């Protein structure tokens, strides 16, 4: 008779940071990563738009134009996303789901959700909880200007879709520096870890 030892592991906490460009999603993702890792949890950041960034890099490589690491040519990225969705509205979500299935981190963070019609419902069905990063508009515009992106769209149609995504949590990020945001994210992390089903038994 084969005796199967049940092995338990924590269920994955899946969080999606939702906000218009310049609100501080990447900053919040970095702070949350640090907070969770300090407790010994493993964190992975998965971007829905990962294929778009790969295509952006290809465009700039073909054009032999420089592109700083992490820089976003927003006009180009939105054009690529629009055409990709025209071909298959679920293409980005499907690619994301494949990468998620291969990810065994304790915490999965996503910080680039924008589409409310296809991507948001799909992520909700995958167990993601949505955290809205709220920033006062003048502060957000100032941050965008200081980011040195090759192109900026201050009022993007894609950002408008974000307003329609129902959220589970929200934090404010209008103060200078990261202290206020960090404090709120620590409270959020404590709440998530305290309320998350901690163990599932694998037979």
């Amino acid at each position, binding site marked *: 008779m084969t005796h199967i030892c049940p092995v338990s592991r924590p269920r994955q906490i899946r969080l999606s940071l939702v906000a218009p460009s310049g609100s501080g999603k990447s900053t919040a993702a970095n702070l949350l990563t640090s907070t969770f890792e300090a407790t010994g949890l493993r964190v992975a950041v998965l971007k829905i738009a990962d294929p778009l960034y790969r295509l952006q890099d290809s465009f700039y490589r073909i054009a032999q134009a420089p592109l700083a690491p992490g820089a976003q040519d927003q006009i180009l990225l939105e054009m690529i996303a629009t055409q990709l969705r025209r071909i298959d509205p679920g293409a980005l979500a499907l690619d994301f789901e494949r990468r998620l299935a291969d990810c065994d981190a304790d915490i999965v963070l996503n910080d680039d959700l924008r589409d409310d019609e296809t991507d948001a419902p799909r992520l909700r069905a995958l167990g993601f909880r949505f955290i809205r990063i709220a920033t006062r508009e003048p502060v957000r515009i100032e941050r965008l200007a200081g980011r040195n992106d090759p192109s900026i769209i201050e009022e993007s149609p894609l950002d408008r879709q974000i307003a329609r995504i129902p959220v589970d949590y929200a934090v*404010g990020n209008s103060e200078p520096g990261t202290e206020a945001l960090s404090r709120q994210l620590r409270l959020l992390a404590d*709440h998530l870890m305290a309320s998350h089903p901690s163990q599932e038994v694998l037979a």
Partner: protein
Amino acid sequence: MSDLFCVFGPFGVRTDETCVAGSLDLVRVPEPDPGAAGACIDLRRCQAGNITAERVPLALVRDGEILALAMRIDAHRVHFWAPPSLPVAASLADLSELEQTLRNLFQRHHLALNNFECNQHFPETDQIVTRSWIMDRPLSPSALLPALLEVCETQIPGVMLHPGQELFRLLRRVTVLEPLGGDALVRLARGGRRKKPAWDAPLWTVETFTARGSIWSRQSAEHLVQDLRPYDGPAAVAAVLMRDTAIRVLGEAEEATCRIGLESLETGTLFQFDISRMRGPGGSATIADLRAVASRSPGPISGKECGALCDALQRAMPTTFTTRPIEGEGLPHAIPSLFHPASLRGVS
């Protein structure tokens, strides 16, 4: 101080219509009670006679000088208002000159005079919730309304429907939030009856509840402006922009309210009687609130008068359902129980 007189005359003086000449007369009146927006005189305290279309209060004069214009005439009270920016006082030789002066003043200030509610300031934070009831069965306020209006109008002595605020219907969507790391609940609704600072400035009604044992109490209510342009957004965004604090969204509820305005004939105290039905993820609830909004008499609102009105309303509630009045230090509110099923409703 010399005597104060109220000028009575045809209503047509206010609207600059042709009137019978020589139709003004002066009636000595007591010194007015100070009010939120100006002076208020109880006509029952002077020999003013009956008010008709040909004989309405128009202005207050002393020593031949106009001090204030009549802004609003209720059943027994006249509210007077002195324009803040333009001089009202005018020396008058005789009543014929007085009539023309009054016509000019009413025309010049007709907008301010017509906006009674805008000149009366009833901040909700100052409202006293005297009693709440939770109905045992969820009921539609609209279905209760005809019976309740008749009861308020005819069966409760010493109270009348407040002119101009007899009935309001409110329909709104409220979001219930929980600030992380605390023990409060926040209820947020877009819009409010307060005047907005600007025509396109969105206004939010924010109420905070805290729990004491099993009873949730409303601690504060305020109206805040939070602009969510250019993208708009859910109430949670407005909440964290008002105060940088992490929050959890517990859910949304639809709230339908019928509001009846009542006025005490004895003291002029204004009351709001709300019947609200809320539907949230935990179910639905119908609650009634009686709030003392403002007093038109000097001094605080009489607790004895509030209690008497509460008792009269409770006796007058339709008998097709039972009610449980809830009192105590910090009145509870049913909304938190729709989102925290473990919370118990207060029982008297």
